[in-house]
């Protein structure tokens, strides 16, 4: 039983990932303001990036840059001494994609504001319903 509690506590990175993911999902579903929804979407994305970077982490490993010793002609590298850089490279792409989606989402929110004069979702829905009843 103690072993299990120790294993659960040692995965604190993944518990943070789950917490942030649920915070983002809550904001996307429950929040009424469009800007708040977009902030929730961004928190969700960063939680996924944190998950991938946590997967690449190793104990007692250094950053993935090769060390060169002067005077040594041959190098012997141990992969266990370096953090796995593959998830980092994948997540580098994900950060750029997240900024692109943020820009598109904010420009759509600006268009919605120009059309309806508000960013609150219930007011927008009420205006759409009123317009459809009139026509």
């Amino acid at each position, binding site marked *: 039983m103690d072993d299990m509690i120790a294993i659960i506590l040692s995965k604190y990175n993944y518990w943070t990932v789950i917490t942030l993911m649920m915070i983002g999902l809550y904001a996307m579903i429950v929040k009424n303001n469009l*800007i708040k929804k977009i902030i929730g979407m961004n928190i969700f994305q960063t939680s996924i990036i944190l998950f991938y970077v946590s997967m690449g982490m190793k104990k007692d490993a250094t950053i993935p840059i090769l060390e060169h010793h002067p005077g040594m002609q041959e190098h012997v590298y141990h992969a266990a001494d370096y953090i796995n850089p593959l998830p980092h490279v994948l997540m580098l792409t994900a950060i*750029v994609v997240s900024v692109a989606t943020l820009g598109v989402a904010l420009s759509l929110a600006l268009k919605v504001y120009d059309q309806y004069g508000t960013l609150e979702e219930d007011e927008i829905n009420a205006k759409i319903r009123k317009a459809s009843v009139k026509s």
Partner: protein
Amino acid sequence: MIWQVEFIILFLVIICGIAALWVKDLLSAAILFGAYSFMMCILWAVMGAVDVAFTEASVGAGVSTIFFVAAVFRTSRRTKD
């Protein structure tokens, strides 16, 4: 990787994320989201992902915050939730 530092930063990340969604002023929410992104960047630097860390510092904490502030200035600042 120092687990105490990582623990404190993970706690601050969750606090900043909740605060960014909790405040009723959208400009404060944008600035708190910038603080959240920067805490995330420090966390990745601690975890050894330096390339991800400086991309997040420039793109996540810099450009995203400017986008949010610009969008809030062009729309309304108040919100009900």
